[in-house]
């Protein structure tokens, strides 16, 4: 078949076969047993020409309601933040996006230096000593962290707050299933002043000499800030490691986990300039304190010098990795999320310290405004009393599921229905409000919620 992506012409193919003393392409496959050879074409559509392809995908996206044409109040781990245009212009440079993992350092200084800068930024945001060059997503970052901890202190239990993102906890349980590590979950306060934060007394009970690590998320899945410092103290008492899951934008204004006793900080860096993309690719970040540097999973870039003494960068500490240590590696990860890490690096460079703080502040201001506006409708009620970041829980008079479906008709992507993950929060609704939302949109949102709840759609 002729294709613009396969340059060898049939004349050239013939000539190459001749060089090989072969008379047909089939002979190249003589090592494959005859009975394995497909006798018919694969049952696939195509070929599509470029323009037909475009039309085909246009017809697919017509079946989607996206957050560009609808107003998004959904978060729950993936957020609709503003992405500066310059980000895509950089990651769209072929030198970046069509290159492989930088095995050959001398012609990969671009990716390598960018990853070095990424590591620096993540370490700075989290207050940790070092970061790797990314893992798949927040969930996989978490399981890598737990595995590190269990191997480090040779313990077999991990204590996880139920206020940690349920997707992460599900993934963790799956991956730990055959590891000999068990998960012990700790509940959260509901009706008291600390509503929405993890239950400290339950935590104290849960931690033991066999606890490899304690996992806490802040802001937690409900958007509520946890008291990491106290958790840290409890963990340290039993010499368990502390693993913190933090939102990177919140770290512009909230204390870094590294300053609060965390040994490992992990999380989802999608909010840093990466589109939601129906959940992937995301960007798992992974940062540690010094003792754990040589135990990190995945790629790490280090600074060094060339033969002329000039600064340069290489993949380093490879002795940890699977391609050298095989089954003894710190992780199996090979391909990571480099281009997303580059996007985050460009995003953080553009935002700078002021910009990121501005984003975080607006998330606070706008989510508080939305919270108050919603409560003022009298159609939703308060669930937790604790202060939150970007996201909050309320209980509307009609079910979240029904509410969301109705809102969609008005061009609004509603909040997350907590009923499935938290039976005790049946009917509760997790609403996210980023800097991208305007007062007008929030007012409209509250108005629609009010009307739907009042049955007057």
């Amino acid at each position, binding site marked *: 078949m002729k294709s613009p992506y396969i340059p060898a012409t049939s004349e050239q193919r013939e000539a190459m076969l001749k060089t090989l003393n072969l008379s047909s392409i089939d002979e190249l496959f003589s090592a494959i047993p005859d*009975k394995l050879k497909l006798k018919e074409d694969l049952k*696939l559509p195509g070929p599509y020409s470029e323009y037909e392809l475009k039309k085909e995908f246009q017809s697919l996206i017509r079946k989607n309601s996206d957050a560009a044409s609808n107003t998004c109040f959904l978060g729950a781990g993936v957020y609709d933040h503003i992405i500066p245009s310059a980000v895509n212009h950089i990651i769209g440079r072929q030198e970046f*996006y069509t290159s492989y993992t930088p095995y050959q350092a*001398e012609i990969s200084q671009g990716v390598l230096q960018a990853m070095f800068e990424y590591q620096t930024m993540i370490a700075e945001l989290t207050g940790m000593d070092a970061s790797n060059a990314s893992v798949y997503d927040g969930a996989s970052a978490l399981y890598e962290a737990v595995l590190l901890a269990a191997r480090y202190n040779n313990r077999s239990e991990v204590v996880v707050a139920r206020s940690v993102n349920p997707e992460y906890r599900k993934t963790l349980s799956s991956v730990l299933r055959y590891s000999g590590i068990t998960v012990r979950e700790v509940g959260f306060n509901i009706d008291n002043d600390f509503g929405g934060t993890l239950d400290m007394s339950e935590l104290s009970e849960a931690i033991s000499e066999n606890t490899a690590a304690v996992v806490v998320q802040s802001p937690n899945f409900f958007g509520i800030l946890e008291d990491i410092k106290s958790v840290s103290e409890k963990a340290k008492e039993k010499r368990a490691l502390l693993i913190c899951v933090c939102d990177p934008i919140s770290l512009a204004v909230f204390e870094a986990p590294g300053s609060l006793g965390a040994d490992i900080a992990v999380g989802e860096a999608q909010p840093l300039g990466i589109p939601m*993309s129906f959940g992937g690719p995301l960007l798992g970040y992974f940062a540690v304190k010094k003792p754990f540097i040589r135990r990190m999973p995945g790629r790490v870039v280090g600074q060094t010098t060339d*033969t002329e003494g000039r600064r340069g960068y290489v993949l380093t500490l490879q002795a940890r990795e699977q391609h050298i240590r095989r089954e003894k590696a710190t992780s199996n990860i090979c391909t990571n999320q480099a281009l997303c890490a580059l996007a985050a690096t460009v995003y953080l460079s553009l935002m*700078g310290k002021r910009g990121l703080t501005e984003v975080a502040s607006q998330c606070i201001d706008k989510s508080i405004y939305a919270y108050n506006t919603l409560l003022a409708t009298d159609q939703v009620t308060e669930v937790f009393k604790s202060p939150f970041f970007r996201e909050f829980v309320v209980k509307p008079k009609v079910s979240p599921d029904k509410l969301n479906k109705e809102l969609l008709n008005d061009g609004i992507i509603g909040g997350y229905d907590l009923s499935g993950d938290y039976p005790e929060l049946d009917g509760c609704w997790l609403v996210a409000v980023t800097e991208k939302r305007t007062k007008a949109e929030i007012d409209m949102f509250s108005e629609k919620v009010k009307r739907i709840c009042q049955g007057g759609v």
Partner: protein
Amino acid sequence: MRDERTIFEKSVENRIGYSLPESDVPKADIHSVFTENLIRKECPQLPEVSETDVIRHYTALSQRNFGVDSGFYPLGSCTMKYNPKINEDIASLNGFTQMHPLQDLQSAQGCLEVMYRMDKYLSEILGMERVSLQPAAGAQGELAGLMIIKAYHESRNDKKRVKIIVPDSSHGTNPASAALAGFEVVHIRSDERGCVDIKALEEVLDDTVAGLMLTNPNTLGLFEEDILKISEMVHRCGGLLYYDGANMNAVMGIARPGDMGFDIAHVNLHKTFSTPHGGGGPGAGPIGVSKELVPFLPVPVIEKKGDSYVLDYDRPLSIGSIKSFYGNFSVIVKALSYILTMGPRGLKTVSETAVLNANYVRKKLEDVFEIPYNRICMHEFVLSASRQAENDITALDLAKNLIDKGFHPPTVYFPLIVKEAMMIEPTETESPETLDAFIGAMRELAELAKENPELLKNAPKNTYVTRLDEVKAARNPVLKWSR
């Protein structure tokens, strides 16, 4: 001209590179909302730079990087083919990038259809029953597959199967993933033809074996001719067969892992299906399974119910989730775009041409380089710089010299069973003229290695940096910039 500064060293106090809407809601006093100990004492020290600074900085960095569009990139095992531009355009449509994974599924039917179709098409290509798109890369696909193997044996109450067999030529992720899934790893040697040593396999097969992981064609670029025998042996002893699909580019439309007897297979969309590698990722490593193993697939599984696509989480035997949500969706879109572009005939032509190109290069180099298993290869082959090593020229030296000649070097020192290995995978997107240019360069280097080896010791010279001190980097790691 030469600017070694990091972005941090370009920072100037009070400079900005952002532009945000002004807030139009009341300003909250963060100190009255949150208790003091929650609030950060010192602002994170991010760079303070303008948009111009940022664009120039990362543009300059890009100019120190080599991509597929820069030239020939015969990195064996990595399938560095050209990435059609249209795939990028399609994946960047708002209708895909601006979708939230948790929004009402009725409002995301387009996304679900993309995934449903990819499940079907990849199943057809692999000869499998169903596919999960969840794994974010090959290694995560392996992990999922091995967990399925574990779950399968456990479901049959067969608890003694603790071993996974891998050939010594296998990729490092195979044993690493097996370990992560809680298996004991058993390595077996390759025979003199570079394939699984049937005897060695025979010896380790018993009822403690959970499965065998195989790359086929293997990492030497050779098709495992005895695959049906191997599959029969492993199955007979109660084990399962896992297919590392990193090398699928050799056999699309020609032979299928499912038909070979494999029970599980992953494919690297960022290799065979032409999604760009992004300087290290993101990729995607969907896994396909045989009918018997469908119940163990990760959740969710996409099903069609009437006219709608739905997500099925209610699968009691499932291994659960190994990643948030549904996989690297954007990457999946690009791969779907690629499959539709090529169609069944196109994919077959891809494999045929990839194999033809590899053999052509092999043939044209066989007189000057040692090729340990020199017969018709599949999409790649491995040569050894052992003859050159006699003159103290290593595979690494050859690699660095290729850089100066405008080529990305092949994979070096892998697979481990070949000394001074150089693993060459041209892919089908390279023209005969490019192959000839590369062949010419390699022959010239072989000549120099014989006649003038000292000339090859200082490469690369035409790069932004010369050879870098890796030992220094590892000994005293500097992993972040500091003042």
